């Protein structure tokens, strides 16, 4: 139902979108920049990562006056296909959403050396350079997780907090490492319980498993649980609601998934990253390589608004902001392993 | 004579891509009579009835009911006009009871809570009124074939039919059940109903009907009062100039001490619900002999055929002189690939023979040669090897099956109801070919519900009752009385 509704809304949206006057035969100098964005297969409408990238694109259209088009591939083999559609058209900048595009971006970037590419979460293989016309957008999730650890440690009454990871891989280890470090920095006596849901991608889609892990952590005394586990986290929220403890969301603001039981969400601002890349392209400052976004670049953060203000004690907020200032000023190094 | 015609079909034409099924057919049926429509398979009887029942629309012609022109777009409209059809293949919901089946689709009472009591009393009233004996509370699954047919008739009457079409109603009945059906139909006639009786069986037509219309190749070729005609005349009208091959079996000489083609020793086959479908059957068929198996259907004939052909697990011993050729009782279900062309149907079962194939290829030329030979040997019509089996008439479909099986030059043949639902011409031809196989030394197990057929062809006749062998008689000693008693399970030899 929700899905069909969103499909209908998107249809309406795209119908209205098309009524915009098309700039015909405009001079290259005055013509707005055209950006092409390729979603992951089935990515659009995920309320997270892909949608966040799209918000960045829309913001750029509004604030920077660019034009954009997007493609949703229907099958894995269409990822490269879609990138090439844009590359062979008049799109100087092409954005791919997701690490899964890494190979495809490499191939197409090689075939179209004059075009610029940006890949969100581009997977850097050790010892391998990013092609000169590709920007790899990476996030220092450990930094925002550090703040999460600070808030959790200073909010907990039992002095025991939990972490539920999705799949046991280096990407998720960054969240865990930052969280642990933040908790220790705020209060060395706080105990951190850590579990992962599994070793396959299924671990990101298993709410039942998430609930089971969360309940066992609660049984061990945890009263705040941070999850970095996709929809597995929905089970964590469920456990929080059942046992009246607090949970912490990830990537985007998850307050609405369990109103009143979400302490805060550790966000990853893909929209910000997308916006910044477009800005650089417009300013002629596009340069291949890795762009890492942390707290300083506003690429990551945590939610503090009217919904959860009341849940976060003043001291926790205070210390978290102090930590933020230290990290931004490079006075505090956050571990990622 | 004043026009009392209940039904008048005039100049009906129905064309199909390959054939003209009805070519200017006239049929006038007087009110309150039993009127037969006879003809070979493919003569156009079924199409005509489907037109009358609103299942098929005619290309030309008119239909009048009691003098008023009508035009049916669907069976629903025909039913509303008082026409009812009792199909050859029953359309009953087996787990439901008799009265539920009768009222199904027209339940009395309100939409969501129908009135079962009224339905029951309505059904028993009908069955009393017309003397149709059947228990309204019985489950259809537990009824005999004859009883199922009575339920079908009740269904039609319940919907207010004053004109009943019965499509080959006796094909599935035992002689006793036939008599009961006829009694029912006569009562219906007395009550003022008009009955259209479709059949192949001239004897029944003469015994039951008032008038008879004969069809051949899509046309009406004659209309007679039964009192003023004879079976011979009707048969001549049906087959036209074609000669009826009078197939007489030469008497089998046992003294020649022939070899055995088929031998069964204490064969048992398990049936449903822990019962035995076949019990301790011992018999033998000599090479060049035809052994008939008579009996009311459902007394183990099917299991016997399938066991002999190795299609059913059994206890005991069966010895065959070679692989048994098999003419199954239901050619649509077990004999033919209806959607496949004629030549593929002729090939089925022989496709592994070296004459037609190597492991990696089928010899198209050899297969066509064989197919054409079969077509001319069996006078297949139309003589088109590419036509789908479904598009042939019943008789021609059966010719394909019989032709294929006999082309194997079998040492053993199991023929189950080989001429059922087949027109006289095709039946004669099939009889002739079975006799030829016998002459060539094939041992034949001929299962049939038609005693005339058995008496005409067989050297000996065995009777099955309730899965047991009641006895075996040489043809010379066989008579209807003895066989009838055995078939009814009354005494054993």
């Amino acid at each position: 139902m929700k899905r069909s509704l969103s499909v209908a809304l998107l249809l309406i949206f795209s119908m209205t979108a098309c009524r915009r006057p098309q700039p015909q035969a405009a001079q290259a100098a005055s013509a707005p920049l055209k950006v092409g964005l390729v979603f992951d297969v089935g990515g659009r409408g995920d309320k997270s990562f892909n949608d966040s990238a799209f918000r960045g694109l829309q913001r750029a259209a509004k604030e920077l006056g660019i034009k954009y088009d997007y493609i949703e591939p229907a099958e894995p083999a269409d990822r490269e296909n879609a990138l090439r559609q844009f590359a062979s058209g008049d799109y100087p900048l092409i954005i791919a959403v997701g690490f899964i595009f890494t190979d495809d971006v490499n191939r197409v970037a090689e075939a179209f050396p004059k075009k610029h590419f940006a890949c969100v979460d581009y997977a850097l293989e050790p010892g391998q350079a990013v092609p000169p016309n590709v920007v790899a957008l990476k996030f220092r999730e450990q930094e925002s997780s550090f703040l999460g650890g600070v808030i959790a440690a200073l909010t907990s009454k039992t002095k025991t907090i939990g972490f539920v990871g999705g799949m046991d891989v280096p990407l998720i280890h960054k969240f865990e490492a930052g969280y642990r470090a933040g908790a220790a920095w705020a209060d060395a006596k706080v105990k951190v319980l850590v579990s992962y849901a599994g070793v396959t991608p299924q671990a990101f889609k298993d709410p039942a498993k998430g609930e089971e892990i969360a309940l066992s952590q609660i049984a061990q005394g945890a009263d705040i649980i941070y999850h970095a586990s996709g929809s597995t986290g929905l089970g964590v929220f469920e456990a929080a609601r059942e046992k009246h403890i607090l949970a912490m969301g990830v990537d985007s603001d998850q307050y609405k998934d369990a109103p009143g039981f979400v302490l805060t969400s550790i966000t990853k601002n893909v929209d910000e990253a997308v916006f910044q890349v477009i800005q650089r392209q417009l300013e002629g400052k596009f340069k291949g390589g890795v762009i890492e976004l942390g707290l300083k670049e506003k690429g990551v953060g945590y939610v503090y608004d009217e919904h959860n203000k009341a849940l976060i004690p003043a001291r926790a907020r205070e210390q978290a902001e102090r930590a933020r200032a230290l990290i931004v000023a490079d006075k505090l190094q956050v571990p990622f392993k | 004579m004043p026009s009392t015609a209940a039904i008048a079909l005039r100049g009906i034409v129905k064309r199909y891509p390959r054939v003209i099924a009805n070519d200017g057919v006239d049929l006038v049926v007087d009110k309150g009579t039993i009127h037969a429509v006879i003809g070979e398979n493919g003569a156009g009887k079924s199409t005509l009835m489907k037109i009358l029942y609103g299942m098929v629309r005619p290309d030309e012609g008119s239909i009048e009911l009691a003098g008023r022109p009508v035009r049916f777009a669907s069976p629903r409209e025909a039913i509303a006009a008082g026409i009812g059809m009792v199909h050859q293949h029953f359309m009953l919901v087996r787990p439901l009871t008799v009265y539920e089946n009768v009222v199904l689709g027209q339940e009395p009472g309100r939409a969501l809570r129908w009135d079962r009591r009224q339905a029951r009393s309505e059904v028993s009233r009908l069955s009393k009124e017309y003397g149709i004996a059947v228990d309204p509370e019985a489950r259809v699954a537990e009824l005999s074939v004859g009883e199922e047919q009575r339920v079908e008739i009740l269904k039609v009457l319940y919907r207010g039919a004053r004109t009943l079409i019965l499509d080959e109603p006796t094909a599935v009945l035992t002689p006793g059940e036939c008599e009961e059906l006829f009694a029912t139909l006569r009562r219906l006639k007395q009550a003022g109903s008009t009955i259209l009786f479709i059949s192949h069986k001239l004897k029944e037509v003469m015994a039951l009907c008032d008038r008879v219309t004969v069809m051949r190749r899509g046309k009406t070729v004659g209309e007679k009062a039964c009192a003023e005609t004879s079976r011979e005349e009707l048969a001549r009208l049906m087959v036209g100039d074609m000669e009826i091959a009078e197939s007489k079996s030469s008497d089998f000489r046992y003294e020649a001490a022939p070899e055995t083609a088929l031998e069964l020793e204490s064969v048992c086959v398990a049936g449903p619900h822990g019962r035995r479908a076949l019990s301790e059957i011992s018999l033998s068929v000599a090479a060049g002999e035809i052994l008939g198996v008579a009996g009311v259907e459902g007394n183990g004939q099917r299991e016997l055929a399938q066991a002999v052909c190795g299609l059913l697990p059994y206890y005991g011993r069966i010895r065959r002189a070679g692989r048994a050729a098999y003419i199954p009782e239901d050619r649509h279900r077990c004999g033919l690939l209806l959607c496949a062309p004629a030549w593929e149907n002729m090939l089925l079962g022989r496709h592994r023979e070296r004459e037609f194939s190597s492991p990696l290829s089928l010899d198209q030329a050899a297969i066509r040669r064989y197919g054409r030979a079969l077509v001319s040997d069996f006078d297949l019509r139309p003589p088109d090897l590419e036509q789908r089996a479904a598009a042939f008439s019943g008789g021609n479909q059966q010719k394909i099956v019989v032709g294929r099986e006999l082309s194997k030059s079998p040492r053993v043949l199991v023929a189950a109801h080989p001429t059922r639902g087949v027109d006289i011409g095709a039946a004669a031809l099939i009889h002739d070919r079975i006799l030829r196989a016998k002459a060539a030394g094939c041992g034949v197990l001929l299962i049939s519900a038609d005693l005339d057929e058995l008496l005409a062809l067989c050297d000996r006749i065995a009777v099955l009752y309730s899965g047991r062998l009641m006895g075996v008689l040489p043809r010379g000693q066989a008579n209807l009385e003895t066989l009838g008693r055995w078939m009814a399970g009354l005494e054993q030899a």
Partner: protein
Amino acid sequence: MRALIKSEGRWITAAAALSLAVLLLGVVGLGRNPALVLRLMVSRVLLSPYGLGQTLYKTTTLIFTGLACALAFRCGLFNIGAEGQVYAGGFLMTAVGLALPGLPAVLLIPLLLVVSALGGGLWALLPGYLKAKRGAHEVITTMMMNFIALALTNYLVMARFHVPETIHTQELPAAASLPLAGAFARTFQGSAVNASLLVALALAAAVWYFLWRTPLGFELRAVGANPEAARSSGVPVESRLFLILVASGALAGLAGVNFILGYKHYFEQGFAAEEGFLGIAVALVAKNHPVGVVFAALLFALLSQAGLALNTVIPRELFEILQSAVIFIVVICQNRLGEKA
């Protein structure tokens, strides 16, 4: 054969024309300019070598899965497990390819083709056995095997074979690569269409020959047309049912060749998403005829590529609706034709 291509061709052309009409109707309904859409479709798909190449690439996969479904349907079985069989075949092939780094291409490629068919066949083994021995409905069993294949290959890739921070395995040795069309015709450069297309076409011809020209193929079709009649004629129906499912699985198993040997050279989680179901659609439109499968696969590939190439102008959902509309139209038309015949 020529007449056959003609009659099948006419059928698919009709389906194509109808789907185009539905598409333009949808475009007008969305308030877009149908002339522009048509022009873009021609220029981006049919006249662009890259677009054409991608279409042929998609056609290749669909021929494999379409043949798998058509073979099973033709023989009376509803194999909806093609997708799982693609994964099984693709994964086994990748594992064997990674284990044999030293083999020359002339040995390795035929070996991998056989292994992928074997993997697909293996994945249909259990449904085939259950069908033959227990009468278990193949729709249920093959569907379950789909889930198992996806979960199992996902697990194996991540647990054993994957390159860090990706969801695919290591690359196969270079000798295992099938040549891209771009290597011979520069115009196709960049496109993924590769020699697998020739394998697929040869397979379509082989399936046709097998079904219509060999005694075993005849038996399988007879089992599909009327199992009772086949049994009465001495065909061992149960063992043939088993064979049909396994053969169908083997055909589907080969579909991975296109993506793995021809394009990416590694096994990627979920690379064949939906290909099994599209195979069913292809078989339906092709009326389960191998020659028809080639054309129907081309039609669906065109729709898919057009959907992608026009995605910036019209929403992809329209093309998804269109695919279903094609199937609807075809099913309706077939029933009507069936009535008349």
